[in-house]
């Protein structure tokens, strides 16, 4: 087990370095000039060139990458070109806000997805399975951007039950667990949870169906094992796949959704990325992407390790 963990951690290193390179290159490949975005609309090409020099963007690409990587390794992600605030501070605050939304949506998606998947798998081809199927197909097919706008129109504008945007009431000093704040969380949670919920439910249904067809289940049934205890065996065997999917979906959510967060003006990483893209704020864009990508690498590692704990076969492989 220890060897497996070590090996997995070692694998993560080249992946991490590859990720930094891709993150750094991507923003350089994108059309448009980060310096141009920084200057007033009227600025001339000459002024752009001068500012490019000031920010060291006239240096060779690999030199820029090396400097950036060196700083990033020391935890210095630079300062935002636009606001002058440290990127690390900006990303930290956004990650916190996305975390709230991701945990809430993750809970909803996992619990609902889990229940729906099990129910549909156990009662395969019965009416309840068809209903779940309908829900999950809708869940994976509906663009969450559209769903978010629809939720706002119905619940915020028409019915005025819930606030349309933001993450707290006017003058809120930060997140709190009271109704005024939680009410802001409901619509974004639904919009964010729809897809992962459906994905989890569909995956779990498939694994449950798969497990139910296996010989050991027939054996257990023949032994006359009570239904509840049989269910436990089925779930335990279907769990590794479900966990992997849940982990990745949770990772997705923690990455923040650019679209959902923009519609709800939720100040998380998605909102931050969108604003960094529009302002061509290079350090901010690279810093945010780097943190998110590294988080994914880490999350994959954790999922692998948890999976191997629940399924001994993986360790041996």
């Amino acid at each position, binding site marked *: 087990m220890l060897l497996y963990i070590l090996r997995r951690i070692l694998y993560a290193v080249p992946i991490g370095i590859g990720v930094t390179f891709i993150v750094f290159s991507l923003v350089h490949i994108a059309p448009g000039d980060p310096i141009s975005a920084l200057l007033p609309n009227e600025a001339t090409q000459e002024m752009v060139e001068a500012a490019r020099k000031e920010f060291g963007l006239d240096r060779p690409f690999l030199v820029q990458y090396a400097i950036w990587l060196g700083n990033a390794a020391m935890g210095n992600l630079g300062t935002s070109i636009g606001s002058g605030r440290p990127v690390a501070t*900006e990303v930290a605050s956004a990650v916190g806000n996305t975390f709230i939304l991701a945990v809430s949506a993750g809970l909803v998606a996992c619990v609902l997805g889990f229940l729906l998947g099990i129910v549909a798998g156990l009662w395969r081809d019965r009416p309840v399975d068809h209903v779940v199927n309908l829900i999950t197909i809708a869940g994976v097919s509906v663009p969450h951007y559209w769903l978010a706008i629809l939720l706002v129109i119905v619940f915020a504008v028409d019915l005025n039950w819930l606030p349309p945007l933001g993450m707290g*009431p006017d003058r809120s000093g930060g997140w709190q667990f009271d109704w005024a704040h939680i009410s802001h969380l409901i619509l974004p949670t639904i919009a964010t949870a729809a897809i992962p919920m459906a994905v989890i439910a569909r995956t779990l249904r498939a694994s449950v169906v798969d497990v139910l067809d296996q010989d050991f289940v027939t054996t257990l049934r023949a032994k006359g094992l009570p239904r509840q205890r049989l269910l436990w065996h089925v779930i335990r065997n279907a769990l590794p796949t479900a966990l992997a999917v849940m982990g990745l979906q949770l990772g997705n959510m923690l990455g923040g959704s650019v679209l959902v967060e923009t519609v709800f003006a939720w100040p998380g990483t998605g909102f931050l990325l969108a604003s960094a893209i529009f302002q061509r704020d290079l350090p901010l864009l690279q810093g945010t992407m780097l943190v998110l990508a590294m988080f994914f690498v880490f999350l994959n590692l954790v999922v692998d390790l948890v999976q191997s704990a629940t399924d001994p076969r993986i360790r041996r492989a």
Partner: protein
Amino acid sequence: MKLGIGLKLMAGLVAAALAAGPALAEGTLRVAMTLADIPLTDGAPDQGTEGVRFAGYTLYDPLISYDLSRSDKSADLRPALATEWHTVEGDKTKWVFKLRQGVKFHDGSDFNADSVIFNLDRAFNKEFPAYDPSFERQLKIYLPSLKSWRKIDDYTVELTTKAPDSLFPYQMPRLLIASPAQYEKLGKNWDAFRSQPSGTGPWKIGELVPRQRLELLPNKDYWDKDRVPKLDRLVLLPIPEVSARTAALLSGRVDWAESPSPDTVEKLTSAGMVISTNAIPHVWPYTLSELPGSPFADIRVRKAINLAIDREGLVKVLNGLAVPAAGNVSKQSAWFGKPTFEVKYDPEEAKKLLKEAGYGPDNPLKIKAAISTSGSGQMYPLLMNEFIQENLRDVGVELELEVFEWEALRGRRRVGAQAPENEGIVILNNSYSTNDPYVAVLRYLTPEEIAPKGSNWGSIRDEEIERLAKELRNEFDAKKQDEIIARIHQRFVDRADFVWVVHDVGSRALSPKVKGHVHAQSWFVDFSPISIAP
């Protein structure tokens, strides 16, 4: 984007919606900005005119500002922290500014000549301890003529220009005066200053939450007693997504939403919201390449395209959120002049001119335009360009649209039509502010402005305009200045150097509770007279 479902019920529901909204202190105005982040609050706001609108003229004053108190005439210059200014007898490069006495910064320190010198050093003196590159970046383009500055006495400063420049006062409104004392107090740190800014403006900082909220409080000791804010609080929220701004206004979360999209106008008005517009100094044109080999080197082609566009039809498509343009400035402007070429919709005349220029069904004119998907002042570029594409097809012109992301388009603009990457592109669709004589006419037309040095994208050259531009720089009488600008503009239109399409109207949607709003003919707003009905 359609906000269709259930909105027919809106009229009835809005009253309930407003009543059910969270309880607020009276006199709080909540504004949904189109920006994705709070503009810089240190006296050098970024993010264009919207940044200046919300974080510039609220917290700070310039030496010379705009008169935003009228909606029925253009917003002219007026004294702010300077009470008067004039050139020195015998040396037209030296400008003396008399400063207003008895003005205090929000931190309590006095405004005087040292404050002005401090801010100029902050911007342009790299040796100065408080030099601030961010300030220079935002300011430099607006103060191109400035050479040097010095204090004469506590309430007089002298600014010197590189050459005689009668238009120098027009460059002053962007120079906002920040408090040197506050900078000292915060450990000489401009980053710290941004969270605790101090200016002389009608609004003081309340709270700043990056990317979420900027709260301003009235400066009850404001030096201009007529402009002491009536509101208790002004809250500015960055909401870049247009449907989110609309929803925020309809649900009572904000009282004011910038730039509603044309397809939401009907819903908003039926819900009782007020769509406020006015002619603002802005133009949405096609900038043309007049380089050899471009079809627009021929004035007949330039005129033909101008005559082929149905501007009234376009305005209708935009639900009234634009006005037809007949030149770079509006017809009501003192700078419009009396051009003989009338920019209007006349497809028959357009066809005739194209035929004269050698184009017809057998040899159709094919042109390519660089356009953007969105961007500051670009309005609704895809919709508008496709409309124009149809118009041009009607007169036998094939317009190809090459779509760029906004920053990419700006890059194409700055390098000029002659740059290799712009090969084949003869039209650039970039909108412009026409706030002052320089940005209204001069910067597009003179040889020293040819890109990449300046904003003359298509290498326009005209001896008559060059002569008039020189004359203008040396004319110090305001009335005569206006006459010369009008003659330049007249020549500009007669030469059809641009294809003029529309002017923006600075649209904003307001809750009926917002009182006292004056929609000036300007990019800027005076929030002082505004109040909010309970």
